[in-house]
């Protein structure tokens, strides 16, 4: 036990003394959360939109107050002048224009049907999509609200000229995605590199020629990265709750338990890579190409799996991060419990056990 502790201490020295490792370890999750988080949400907050109200009636005013009171938009009233609208658009001061037709209220009351025109600045496609989406949902909300008080239901159709962007379905899906990505990177790459480094510098030779059990070398190397990865999970969750206002809907202990399971999966993978490679460079390359890329491609985080060709959908099943991504998303956003996630958890557990067995089996207690 004392030997194990000495080993773990040494491992922490390595990490704490290498500024590059530190930067990757703690800078990356923060940077990723901020990049993904703010790139996707911040610009939508307090976006200035221009309202051209040809109707100026009750309904349009009510709807406008509703849009204005949301935290996403700031409303500017405009002169009813097309040229002016265009020039404000060109200057990039506003993100969208909402146009109420002349007889908005009347159309609603008499025809049970009205239209609102939404024109978005689509130079930034993501933001434009997001804004139109938010606007649409506010309008729908208004519609539902009004419908409750009315006997005769009516419909407002926001007329949006943009393709529906499936990524926007879960704008917050990136937090689980970043978690999978960061844990993959830290646990797989860092573990693999740190074990291979001992081979490269020759210290593995000395460690093998010592009473310290070779298998313990591996566990002692993996342990600090388990701890550091958990610190990363905490950091990501704190950032997500306090900076991005995305609370964890489900059970936090369950989330940590699942994260620990996934970290162990990654550590097993890292150990396996380290056993099969001889240089840090190759270990890094395999970790990046073989692990990080599939996580980005097949976890469903950046590209929806259901839109992929069937063979790729099948391949995606062997990527552990896919299952972890589903689990985290379900717990954080949908608030689901283990009763709904036992299948995914079991798959991940199976993968972990398999990887650990393979790694331990192929671990060499000698140089060759």
């Amino acid at each position: 036990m004392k030997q194990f502790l000495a080993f773990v201490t040494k491992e922490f020295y390595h990490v704490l003394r290498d500024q590059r490792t530190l930067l990757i370890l703690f800078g990356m999750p923060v940077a990723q959360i901020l990049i993904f988080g703010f790139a996707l949400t911040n610009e939508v907050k307090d976006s200035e939109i221009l309202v051209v109200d040809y109707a100026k009636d009750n309904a349009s005013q009510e709807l406008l107050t509703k849009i204005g009171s949301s935290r996403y938009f700031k409303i500017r009233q405009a002169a009813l002048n097309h040229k002016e609208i265009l020039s404000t658009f060109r200057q990039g001061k506003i993100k969208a224009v909402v146009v109420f037709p002349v007889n908005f209220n009347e159309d609603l009351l008499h025809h049970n049907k009205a239209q609102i025109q939404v024109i978005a600045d689509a130079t930034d496609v993501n933001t434009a999509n997001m804004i139109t989406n938010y606007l649409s949902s506010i309008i729908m909300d208004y519609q539902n609200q009004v419908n409750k008080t009315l006997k005769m239901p009516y419909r407002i159709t926001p007329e949006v000229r943009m393709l529906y962007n499936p990524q926007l379905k879960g704008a917050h899906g990136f937090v689980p995605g970043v978690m999978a990505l960061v844990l993959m990177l830290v646990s797989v790459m860092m573990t693999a590199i740190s074990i291979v480094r001992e081979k490269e510098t020759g210290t593995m030779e000395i460690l093998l020629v010592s009473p310290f059990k070779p298998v313990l070398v591996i566990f002692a190397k993996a342990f600090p990265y388990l701890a550091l990865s958990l610190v990363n999970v905490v950091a990501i969750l704190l950032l997500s709750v306090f900076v991005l206002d995305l609370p964890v809907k489900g059970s936090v202990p369950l989330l940590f338990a699942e994260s620990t399971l996934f970290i162990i999966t990654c550590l097993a993978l890292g150990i396996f890579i380290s056993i099969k490679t001889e240089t840090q460079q190759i270990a890094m390359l395999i970790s990046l190409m073989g692990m990080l890329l599939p996580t980005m491609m097949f976890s469903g985080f950046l590209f929806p799996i259901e839109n992929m060709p069937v063979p790729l959908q099948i391949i995606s099943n062997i990527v552990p991060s896919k299952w972890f991504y589903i689990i985290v998303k379900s717990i954080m956003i949908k608030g689901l419990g283990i009763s709904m996630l036992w299948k995914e958890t079991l798959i991940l557990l199976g993968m972990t056990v398999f990887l650990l067995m393979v790694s331990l089996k192929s671990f060499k207690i000698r140089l060759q």
Partner: protein
Amino acid sequence: MEAVVVKNLTKTYGKEQTVAVDDVSFSVNQGELFGLIGPDGAGKTSIFRMLTTLLLPDGGSASVDGHDIVKDFRAIRSSVGYMPGKFSLYQDLTIEENLHFFATVFGTTIEENYHLIKDIYVQIEPFKSRRAGKLSGGMKQKLALCCALIHQPTTLFLDEPTTGVDPVSRKEFWEMLKRLKEQNITILVSTPYMDEASLCDRIALIQGGKILSIDKPDNIVNGYPDTLLAVKADQMYRLLKVLEKHPDMLNSYAFGEYAHAVFANGQMQPEALESYLHAHGLSGVEVLAARATIEDSFIKLLH
């Protein structure tokens, strides 16, 4: 008592079955300072790695302190000390942290065995909070030796500890080894430097995976069968060319400031060679009867 026994040890590598160690046998007595002398690629490292249980032999057997290198590898791992050829400590840990780490890994403490490393450690102690990566070559070597000694090994394996080290540090290192021998630790050391052979109790000359000769350095030198003459002239390069053409000469080669000329035992007198060289137009000729060195013996064995 024999600390290390090696019997017909063989090791081959790769698909082409390149033979690195070819049917090697020797034994080392308890408390002996034993040298494996040979150039790079002679098989020294492979032998050390097999004896330290890092590699499995392809043939033959060996034991260290009575433990079989294949079956009892755990027992060997806890009793021997090993210093690989490349500096293999943690560059980002300080002297003290490295030593402490290795002491703990071997299940001991620095205090417990301080007497063993004291002589060496006091030389680097003033820098104990300096990181190993920032030490000079000589200091790294001393630290590595301390780390290999800290668990009071019965047998110490030092693989080319002096390669790439300047002559002054080399001398210091050998003095440390002599003092260690007094602690009754068996030491196996390998080196490509022939001049270090005389510092060992016994040596094995090795080349191409085969042992050429095993004996006390003095015995090897005394057993040199031929007449060896040391020759000097004003024009050394021409001298070598002229010597090469002498009909009775067995071998000739540069040797420091002299050239060594080898003739069959008793077949040449210094005076005779001197006049031969004069006759070939060389000036400043000096010919002496020379005592063979390990290097001469090695060349003889290779020839």
